[in-house]
């Protein structure tokens, strides 16, 4: 069962949060924010609040929506999720003069993101597109795992079995990230962690893609050596259980 509040956290920090990496990886997205100095705050009643900040050609996301140039309030998690799904049109409570950025450039950014996260099958034949799409999906999933582990009732059960430490997740030598567990709260680290207490390494982008798309199973891949796990195995085991729920929310 999907929890709308947990989904709002995923939409805020995993989906919208990935706009920041989109702007690093995609040239069109980079160009869209090249001269922008603007921030969009999303304030969700009884849910998450976060601010996407565009400054000097770089994008970042932070918690809280008090310091922003455009503020978008949402009366409920369902309304916010509706905006991400494209069924709800937000109306700003602050920053009317900047609405052009929201309507044009930001909308274009999210369109590009959707292109990568929900790709047409033939688009994946392009090597560069495939790499960017899989990398973005990897970061969405890492962040979604953290949000589900913290906000979803079943995810919290999984997180309750994760001892303190950092699990390193990587795709070959191409991309790495970490999930930090502290008192059973999870934080995503969107870069290779300096040290780690467990690891889960996908052999390559192709395998990672197949796993993300549910075409192969992680347990089966351990036997073939395409997926390597080690260290504090219960950490990655319970992360895998949360990973199972990611598909439920991002389907």
């Amino acid at each position, binding site marked *: 069962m999907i929890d709308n509040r947990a989904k709002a956290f995923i939409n805020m920090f995993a989906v919208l949060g990935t706009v920041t990496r989109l702007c690093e990886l995609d040239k069109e997205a980079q160009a869209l924010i090249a001269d922008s100095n603007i921030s969009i705050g999303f304030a969700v009643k009884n849910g998450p609040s976060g601010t996407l900040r565009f400054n000097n050609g770089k994008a970042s996301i932070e918690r809280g929506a008090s310091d922003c140039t455009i503020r978008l309030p949402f009366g409920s998690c369902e309304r916010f999720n509706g905006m991400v799904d494209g069924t709800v049109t937000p109306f700003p409570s602050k920053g009317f003069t900047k609405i052009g950025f929201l309507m044009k450039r930001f909308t274009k950014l999210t369109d590009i993101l959707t292109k990568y996260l929900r790709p047409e099958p033939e688009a994946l034949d392009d090597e560069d597109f495939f790499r960017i799409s899989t990398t973005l999906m990897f970061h969405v999933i890492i962040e979604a795992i953290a949000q589900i582990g913290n906000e979803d009732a079943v995810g919290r059960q999984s997180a309750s079995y994760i001892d303190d430490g950092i699990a390193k997740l990587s795709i070959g030598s191409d991309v790495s990230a970490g999930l930090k567990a502290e008192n059973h709260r999870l934080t995503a680290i969107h870069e290779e962690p300096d040290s780690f207490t467990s690891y889960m390494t996908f052999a390559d982008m192709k395998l990672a893609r197949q796993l993300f798309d549910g075409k192969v199973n992680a347990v089966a891949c351990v*036997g*073939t050596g395409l997926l390597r796990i080690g260290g504090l195995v219960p950490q990655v085991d319970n992360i895998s259980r949360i990973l199972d729920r990611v598909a439920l929310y991002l389907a």
Partner: protein
Amino acid sequence: MHKIYEYPKSREYFARAAAVIPSGIYGHQGPAEGCYIPVEAFPLFSERAEGTYFWDVDGNRFIDYMCAYGPNVLGYNDPDVDAAAAAQRKKGDCVTAPSTKMIEFAELLVDTVASADWAFFAKNGNDVTTLSIMAARAYTRRKKIVFFKGYYHGVSPWTQKIDYPGIIEEDVANNIYIPWNDVSAFEQAIAENPGQIAAVISQPYMHGNFKDNELPAESFWKKIRKLCTDNGIVLVIDDVRAGFRLDLAGSDHYYGFEADLICFCKAIANGYNVSALCGKDFLKSTVSGMTYTGSYWLSAVPFAAGIACITKMRELDLPRLLLEKGLKLKEGLIAAGKKHGFDLHVSGEPALFYLRIADDDTLMLHQEWIAECVKRGVFFTNHHNHFLNYALSDGDIAETVSIADEAFAVVANRRG
């Protein structure tokens, strides 16, 4: 220097298996749940087994400290057990009317196991742990079950966690989880669920994975027993893993208390497939009325094997022998580690020892060492308690310590 094993045929067979079997080898004997780290260090399929050894499909011989995860207690192909099974097979095995071997086996268990007034047979440990919970619920007409964290009681939905694939909230809605050795947590659970707890189920000591195994604290079981009696809660001991290796009268007997229900499998018949739930007289009528059976549960060959196995274990006073072997091995392994600067912790009961190199909390060092042992012919695991069997000789223990020593040296050199 010991030979370093390679496994080309294992890999070939695994590729074949993966094509037609989910995950190639599923469950605890597979590379994922078996924590084969790295997978290349471990054999995947066996060719044959004898005594304390198994040979893989590449012809490599292993001193086997997993004993098929417990069933091999006298040695693979024990001649006495196999002869009894063969004799029964000639007479009949799975027949419309069960063999009287079933009665003999039940009588032997009642005579051997201190808390047993009756025995009910099935096939796997999971069959009888599940029966124990159903019986407790039927008898008490209560729903809730108390578990100690770190438990393993099988794979039925009631034993699993809410986040496992295929498990729904309702499957585990009546489960209460408390820390091991925590009597006050049990008292609190009783206070918070008055008249609702049907049973507490526990292994005799905590032999959970990835952590040092933990024995019961002083008077822990005495207090739990009293709380169960005072509150009408059925005390179930899951002795599937430890049963008969600590005490032929049951691990509850070993720790000085009596269970209401006790579950056996693994060492009960030296690898022949049978499990048993034994219990107190007051639960016999309840179990008599339950609908619970299986196609092969009354097969006679495993009963004959079980009778021969328990009889031989009694004659040998096997738990005493396993304790001696375990202590000898423990001493040798710790000394080998110390020689190379490693602090090897050996926890749990010696007959079911658990290993962990304590110098690295991430277990990566430990996993490296285990892999080097396996590649040289000592089948240890990096996550699970081990098992001893009667066929393990002093020579095998010496060879094990020698290989462990070499593996420690390799890891020490690699880590500088």
